């Protein structure tokens, strides 16, 4: 008994010593193991296997779309902001892409440029409203989302534009069992990790999220940092829109009905980034996205009722966040917030 007690004690102590990100990857591994076991037991007679190629492809395909949105969302949440308009931005981007390409492969570079420009401008508007007009980001981005929704509903009654074969490859091609879109997402995640760790603006984002007032008094132009985060977030949503266009082969205004923004926020928080800003990172977000994707694939393979999926998803999100929320918040309470933020950004 005592041996077990000591072993347990040692295990919990080691877990406590782990960083939040490591803990999330541990959670991802746990979800994979449990999911794999559930699938194996449920479909034992059919020889079901969560790690069969088809299921792995499904899993990785699911990560890319939420991944793009969640990477951008991480940046704004780190700055203690929020973006509820990404779903609408992605839908608009898919239309801009499809109508600009109009079936001609030579238009692809122009279309990508147009999408990044349009989405970047939306992000700049979001950032400016939040930074200069001091509107709460929840309301500001809900408002811009509504504005875009009205534009989409008025201008596009149905699918529009035509995506050439060449660009549709972005949605369907894969190398081995890894879809190209997932590789692009991982590359973007890598770039974002580098951006947050190694650039000045990246460090400033942690500082602004930790305490905007202290950051301002330390000489950081907080408004610029906030706007930069919003622009990058919206551009990530633009890339997600490109992926939507590549998958559907056309631009679709209906895409916003899927509430992608809530998925993205859930993934970011699952990934250990604090909604209050200043703590977290993109590496955790990728794990958060992966956890959601694994869950969806498991539910799919086990053919769970789509409505039961929502119930399980909601419960898992709450439970997962509850698991590490306590220690995360305890830590923030232990030291002043700005010290935590600066420690991170050093």
């Amino acid at each position, binding site marked *: 008994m005592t041996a077990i007690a000591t072993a347990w004690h040692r295990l919990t102590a080691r877990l406590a010593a782990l960083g939040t990100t490591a803990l999330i990857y541990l959670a991802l591994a746990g979800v994979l193991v449990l999911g794999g076991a559930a699938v194996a037991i449920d479909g034992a007679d059919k020889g079901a296997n969560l790690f069969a190629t088809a299921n792995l492809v499904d899993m990785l395909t699911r990560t890319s779309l939420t991944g793009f949105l969640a990477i951008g969302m991480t940046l704004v949440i780190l700055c203690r902001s929020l973006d509820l308009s990404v779903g609408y931005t992605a839908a608009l981007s898919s239309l801009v892409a499809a109508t600009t390409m109009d079936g001609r492969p030579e238009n692809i570079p122009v279309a990508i440029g147009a999408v990044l420009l349009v989405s970047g401008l939306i992000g700049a508007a979001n950032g400016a409203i939040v930074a200069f007009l001091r*509107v709460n980001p929840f309301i500001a981005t809900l408002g811009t989302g*509504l*504005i875009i*929704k009205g534009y989409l509903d008025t201008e596009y009654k149905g699918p529009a534009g035509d995506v050439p074969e060449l660009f549709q490859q972005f949605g369907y091609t894969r190398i081995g069992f890894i879809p190209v879109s997932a590789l692009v997402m991982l590359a973007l995640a890598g770039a974002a990790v580098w951006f947050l760790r190694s650039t000045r603006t990246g460090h400033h984002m942690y500082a602004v999220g930790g305490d905007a007032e202290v950051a301002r008094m330390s000489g950081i132009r907080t408004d610029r940092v906030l706007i930069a985060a919003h622009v990058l977030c919206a551009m990530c949503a633009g890339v997600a829109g490109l992926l939507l266009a590549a998958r559907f082969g056309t631009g679709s205004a209906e895409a916003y009905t899927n509430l992608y923004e809530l998925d993205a926020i859930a993934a970011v928080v699952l990934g250990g980034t604090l909604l209050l800003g200043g703590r977290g990172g993109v590496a955790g977000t990728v794990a958060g996205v992966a956890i959601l994707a694994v869950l969806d694939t498991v539910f799919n393979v086990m053919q769970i009722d789509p409505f039961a999926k*929502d119930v399980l998803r*909601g419960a898992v999100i709450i439970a997962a966040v509850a698991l590490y929320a306590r220690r995360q918040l305890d830590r923030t309470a232990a030291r002043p917030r700005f010290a935590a933020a600066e420690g991170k950004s050093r």
Partner: protein
Amino acid sequence: MTRLRGPVDLLRWAANPTGTVFVLLAVIFAWIFVLNDAFFAGPSFMAFLKQAAPLMVLAAGQYFVIVSGNFDLSVGALVGAQVVIAARLIDGEESRTVPVLLVMVGFGLLVGLVNGLITTVLKVQSFITTLGMLLVLFGAIRLWTGGAPTGGLSESFRTAGRMGIEGVPVLGQIPWAVIIMVAVGAGAILLMRTGFGRILMASGDNERAAGLAGARVDAARIAAFLLSGLSATIAGILIGGYAGVSAQVGDGLEFTVITAVVLGGVVLGGGRGSVLAAMAGALAIEALFSLFNQMALPATLRPTVQGAIIIAAVAYAARRRARPGSTAPHVSATANPS
């Protein structure tokens, strides 16, 4: 709200965040009056208030949660769930109305309690707690009914949402919904003046200071979630009676009601704002929808105008708040609450 002594005070009041919503409301009403003065005839104005009542009740409930520093994103799904539960359990039988009403109140309180406990005891940010609750309720209701709600409401159940005191001079009919809404509003205002209300406000303003001063912050916040669940139940009864049974009645309502509360000058993150203004914010949003109707604005364009007006109104209020000389500038005006 301070007592007004003269034109200067009136101006100052109109310029503060709480006053902004009343100015906005006056502007919208004036515009409707120009387009169609018959709108303000007793019966049609009462019909407008009857339609606005559920959102105003929800706004009062959401106000408690927001002012204590949290969010409740689950109210829309809860309203939908309550309507479906009522239809399924009553199934057209008059005699079941009262027991089912009690079940609904119990269910609303249970959802609020779970939200509150997860947020305070497990320390999950309320945005995530209630987002999870939204998913759970949304899925569970459709799972239970197999996608389409079944059963039907009884006549007496629908009374609250549809009927009223008939034959009142000038007004024609005073709908029960309006009476319930006024009662909820009065109750909420009185509650915010009690010790509980002050603790709630303090918890949202500075959790640590409130805790050190001996306030039971967690208990107050759980109570706020309970009140929100209760208000969603009342709103569900009103909407079910008014609009009939559909699982979609609550979809998106959470964002509308949070917008309404913020429009009323209540600060997301807690500690600031009045419940009267929050309910006025809800009335302003409903008035805006009526204005769109009067203007015959194409339905597809409405979200754009709505979004622009919301941003403008909140920006206007925020600008006043940030001005030196007014009440202490709120540093975290750009912050989002947990």
